[in-house]
């Protein structure tokens, strides 16, 4: 369920980058504060372990298919949420660069969907609550399955929301949800069972490993944390608003009107209000758009400029609205990227001063 660059709009990609970078910065500071330098090599090697484990399959009885581990929840159980988040994020970076799983711009989405939900939501709020302090085998299994399902359901829903908000795929929201959620219910159960099998084994062989995470010292409360949380909240808010702009309600409305009235050659010929609005838009646009001044034929960019090509008026009109949103999307994406790096720069400076 890696989100791909090809389905992403810059606004959604940028917003998710901001959210993920914020979470990475937060988790980095958390891990540093734990002052347990055994964790540094452990995180790295366990990330590499996850890579290896993802390649090993097991057969699922009765189906003829096989499953493998995703591993987000397992890492959280072994390392604790913050270190696990960093480890998962690093695995996703390698996958994006070497195996083209997802993509670089989609990395923000993927880190969030596959890292944030299992490590920072499903583990602390589901797994730990069910498993308790010293769980037995049955309890571990139930906790792992429920937590894995919860994490994957949230992740799958996030993928759907990001795809729909980006508006590159024309899959409608209900159909996409109906497709994704049941598939990930099955994947979640398999993931939970695999996680439980490994955790049970480790619990028998080296119970101290599991105990160490449960008893890990809690980092002291710090105003820094609040700053980061505020930053995260802001990123979410920005993400929501930017995505809303990107998929654009007025746009979609126009679309559905065009669809409802039917055929391709639908006429928007009344000179009245629409033209006036367009003129107004042109005059007051924050980014005066190049394409308004072109002839309708050249404005639509799809397909080659072959002779005998006709483009509907409705489409042209739609395009005019859309180009505005894409430009603002780019600007939005650039701004969020700039913010990410600015935040990173400030954080780095801060950690040096401290």
């Amino acid at each position, binding site marked *: 369920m890696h989100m791909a*660059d*090809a*389905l992403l*709009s*810059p606004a959604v*990609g940028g917003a998710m980058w901001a959210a993920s*970078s914020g979470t990475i*910065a937060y988790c*980095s500071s958390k891990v*540093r504060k734990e002052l347990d330098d055994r964790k*540094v*090599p*452990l995180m*790295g*090697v*366990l990330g*590499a372990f996850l*890579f*290896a484990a*993802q*390649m*090993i399959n*097991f057969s*699922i009885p009765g189906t003829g298919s096989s499953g493998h581990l995703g591993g987000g929840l397992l890492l959280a159980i072994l390392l604790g949420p913050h270190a696990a988040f*960093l480890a998962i994020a*690093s695995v996703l970076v*390698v996958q994006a*660069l*070497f195996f*083209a799983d997802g*993509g*670089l*711009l989609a990395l923000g989405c993927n880190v969030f969907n596959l890292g944030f939900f299992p490590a920072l939501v499903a583990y602390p709020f589901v797994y730990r609550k069910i498993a308790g302090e010293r769980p037995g085998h049955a309890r571990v299994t139930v906790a792992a399955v429920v937590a894995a399902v919860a994490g994957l359901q949230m992740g799958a829903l996030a993928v759907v929301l990001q795809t729909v908000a980006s508006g*590159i*795929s*024309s*899959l409608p929201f209900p*159909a996409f949800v109906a497709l994704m959620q049941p598939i990930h219910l099955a994947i979640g159960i398999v993931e939970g*069972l695999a996680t439980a*099998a*490994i955790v049970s*084994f480790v619990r028998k*062989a080296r119970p101290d*490993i599991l105990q160490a995470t449960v008893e890990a010292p809690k980092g002291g409360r710090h105003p820094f944390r609040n700053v980061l949380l505020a930053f995260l909240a802001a990123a979410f808010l920005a993400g929501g608003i930017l995505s809303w702009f990107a998929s654009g309600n007025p746009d979609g409305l126009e679309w559905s009107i065009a*669809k409802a009235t039917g055929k*391709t050659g639908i006429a928007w010929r009344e000179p009245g209000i629409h033209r006036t609005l367009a003129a107004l838009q042109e005059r007051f646009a924050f980014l005066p758009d190049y394409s308004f001044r072109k002839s309708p*034929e*050249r404005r639509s*960019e799809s397909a080659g400029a*072959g002779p*005998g*090509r*006709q483009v*509907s008026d409705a489409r042209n009109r739609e395009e005019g609205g859309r180009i505005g949103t*894409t430009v603002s999307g*780019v600007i939005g994406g*650039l701004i969020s990227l700039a913010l990410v790096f*600015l935040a990173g*720069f400030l954080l780095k400076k801060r*950690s040096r001063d401290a």
Partner: protein
Amino acid sequence: MASIQGTILDFRRLEELAGGDTALHRLDARAKVLSTLAYLLAVVSFDRYALTALFPFFLYPVAILSLGGLPAGYFARKVALILPFALAVGMLNPLFDREVMVRLGPIGVTGGWISCGSIVVRAALTVSAALVLVGVTGFPEICRALERLGAPQAFTVQLLFLYRYIFVLTEVGGRSSRARELRSFGGKGLGIRSYGSLVGHLLLRTWMRAERIHMAMRARGFTGEFHTTAQSRFGIRELLFLLCWSTLFAVLRLRNVPQFLGALVTGPPG
């Protein structure tokens, strides 16, 4: 993943390519990372029905491939492996978006097909850009670039550690997995029980390895930083590289070059 050994070999190959010594390889990684990001932003910012306007963007991966002396066939195969997935996602578009957008003579092409094509082209562009970036830069250099661009150190150290041990652990995992396959018969012994203890053992060995690494680290006075001998800097060449490419991307994004070229050939439309 079909074969673990094959995956590892493939992985190795890409890493070896990054060890080249062309002018592009020597460029500071930050320039390459930033121009790749500019490229991706330009590509994904296109409207969902953009198809031909995307084509000039193939220039970037192709130029880097050739300037960096990378084997084009290898990268083309890697990109081709991804395209079926993109097509699978894009194939749903024609089902939901049936409005005819373009008429080429008697054939009406619906918006769904155009956006499906657009998704496939986007996938090819973005995937090739990422692969080419690795091929011409190398993973450790990319990590260092990220750190110098402001990524938290704990994270970049994690990336470098992960990268160092991926080869070791995938090989160990691959051996264990093959050993289990050789000992199983008719699908027996490949179930979750043996899987649990197999991966559990792998995990325990990994854990002990981490403890050894930790002791070695302590003995050598590791302070949480990887040092390199070659220190590159962001000079005038890097600036030029970044500026030229970004300008080109901006121009290609704002002007529909294929349409312009088409108009030159067919005469102005309308």
